[in-house]
């Protein structure tokens, strides 16, 4: 391929031959692209599209325009400060009558409840008691079913959330809310959970990364300076946990860290402690298990960089009279920075998205962002909020890759 390129580009060949070569090259490129096409289409369809759709959910206001079409069309007529006109009441009544006996009524109620607590009950109750046709005064009908329909706060919410796009989920994920007057304020301290969640996620990930670096660096250095046979054995020992299923390792820690578990028994036997420590369902357990799972991801890139550091440099520095600490600080450490960057990026990025290990080893207050994404998807079924959290997680990881990706290079990310 490269040989033919040079031939065509030298300009010393007859034009006809050049044309033929160019055509052959084009055919070759087409063939190669055809080989790549299935994978590219596969990843685009099963990765890019789902991620894009998932992220779009964080601003997608699907329920209200879908289930209350007439209300959304009419509510522009209403201006705050006065009571909603009869047309708006009528529109809502018609929309709700259409939802009678449909499961969508519950979906709509759930969505409205995110914005105003109690809205779900109001919708369910109203839908249940509505007649099949709209009487002369829809306002009297609704107010008769529930007085809250005279409270402008519910109407203001409907008006504010009537667009196709909403910032509701993104704001919620930052512990913010938009009042009915449009101003953004912080939510009550009792309801604020997400900022502390990000703090905890960052704290855990940074902590795990630092511990991995501190204990992984000497191990990698010893491996790199060992003879080939010893290095191979050490490498195998690091690869065993690397290849062992994450779940097997987490299960092992669940067993070991129990109050009656081996770790406590050994510590008591050695006389280090008298009472069993509680290591499960708390931060200590999460750190012990996560460092165990992620340490190979620190050691392996460090090792591959350290193996390339020539001992000649170190000897040169020593022979010039540098004390060992200076040799380490000014020669060895700077030469291994690419390995440090690669290892830290890997460990941090992996731990920031961790889900399984904290879910099994940690307590309720140790769960990280990944757990809440799963929770809002499975248990709470608040897909908009799950998506907003996912968007923040992706943002953090993309930023790290952009900053460190140039230092590290994507090809080093050989992980599982």
């Amino acid at each position, binding site marked *: 391929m490269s040989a033919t390129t040079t031939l065509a580009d030298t300009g010393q060949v007859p034009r006809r031959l050049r044309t033929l070569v160019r055509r052959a090259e084009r055919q070759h490129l087409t063939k*190669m692209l055809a080989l790549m096409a299935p994978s590219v289409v596969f990843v685009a369809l099963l990765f890019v599209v789902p991620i894009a759709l*998932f992220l779009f959910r964080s601003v997608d206001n699907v329920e209200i325009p879908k289930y209350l079409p007439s209300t959304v069309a009419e509510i522009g007529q209403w201006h705050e400060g006065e009571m909603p006109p009869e047309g708006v009441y009528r529109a809502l009544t018609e929309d709700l009558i259409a939802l009678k006996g449909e499961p969508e009524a519950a979906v709509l109620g759930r969505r409205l409840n995110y914005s105003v607590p109690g809205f779900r009950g109001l919708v369910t109750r109203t839908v249940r008691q509505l007649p099949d046709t709209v009487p002369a005064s829809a306002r009297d009908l609704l107010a008769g079913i529930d007085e809250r329909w005279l409270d402008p706060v519910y109407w203001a919410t409907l008006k504010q959330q009537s667009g196709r796009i909403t910032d509701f989920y993104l704001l919620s994920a930052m512990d913010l809310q938009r009042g009915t007057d449009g101003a953004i304020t912080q939510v009550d301290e009792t309801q604020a959970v997400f900022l502390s969640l990000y703090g905890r996620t960052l704290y855990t990930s940074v902590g795990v990364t630092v511990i991995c670096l501190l204990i992984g660096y*000497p191990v990698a250095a010893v491996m790199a300076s060992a003879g080939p046979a010893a290095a191979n054995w050490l490498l195998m020992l690091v690869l065993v946990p690397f290849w062992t299923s994450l*779940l097997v390792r987490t299960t092992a820690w669940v067993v070991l860290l129990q109050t009656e578990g081996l770790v406590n028994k050994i510590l008591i036997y050695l006389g280090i402690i008298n009472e069993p420590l509680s290591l499960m369902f708390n931060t200590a357990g999460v750190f012990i298990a996560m460092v165990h799972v992620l340490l*190979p991801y620190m050691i392996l890139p460090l090792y591959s960089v350290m193996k390339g550091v020539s001992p000649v440099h170190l000897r040169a520095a020593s022979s010039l009279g540098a004390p060992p600490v200076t040799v*380490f600080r000014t020669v060895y450490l700077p030469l291994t920075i690419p390995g440090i960057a690669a290892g830290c990026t890997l460990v941090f990025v992996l731990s920031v*998205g961790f889900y399984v290990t904290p879910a099994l080893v940690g307590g309720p207050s140790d769960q990280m962002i*990944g757990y809440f994404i799963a929770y809002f998807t499975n248990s709470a079924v608040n897909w908009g909020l799950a998506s907003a959290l996912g968007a923040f997680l992706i943002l953090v990881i993309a930023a790290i890759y952009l900053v460190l990706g140039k230092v590290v290079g994507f090809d080093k990310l050989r992980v599982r």
Partner: protein
Amino acid sequence: MMQKFRRRAGRGSLWQLALRAFVGLVLAYLVLPILVVIPLSFTAGQLLVFPIPGYSLQWYEDFFTNPLWTGALWNSVMIGVATTILATILGTLAALGLHGSKFRLKPVVVALLITPLAAPVVIVAVATFYFFASINLVGTYLGVILAHTLLALPFVVITVTATLQGFDTNLTRAGASLGATPVHVFRTVTLPIISPGIISGALFAFVTSFDEIVVALFVASPQQRTLPRQIFSGVSESISPTIMAAAVVLLVISLGLMIVMELLRRRSERLVGRAR
């Protein structure tokens, strides 16, 4: 610190001993907790405690006769094999195409094919769940296999591309100039030379699927429960020695594949070394 660097000249010391002891402790921390599941899986008692009251194979018997576990094992193997076939074919073709071409958008294609590896699995799992829910693939074998293939594909692309880098393209030209069709050249020249890379990629793909838990939690229904998923629900509900037996089975399979990979790697290193 001085000794650390002097050690390169072959001298030992107290400091070096301390460093070695530290490294030994770290490696023990890495390996021993995994091994703890092995004796526990053979316990004759009901509880997961040391010392072990006696040894028995009852938990393995439970594992290999209880339809809950045999079904999970069967699902894992089936999904793993299907994922391996799909990912290996797709990934090998892509690697061949990438290796044989130069074009401006090539880095974009490489990045696209590698990114599923760099994204947090929980995001991939949740996004796949939403997407599959809209096209009725949640709770189907096809859905789990497709999602696992997405996670396994980058490994095949990376491994096969790495092998192709040591591959002399003049060999295919030689074959073609002797009149062989491209398919014939691929089958008789390219494939035998890059097969260690393809096999490594396939093993990587299998292990990726076989050990995968997060996607399985979201995309699979109880009907497609895999071995990791069965272990996960066991650990989060009531942990029993049968889970230890299941963990040992998983451990033996993963480590067996790791040894095969390591042997393959050393063999191809030897071959490359000899060729040079």
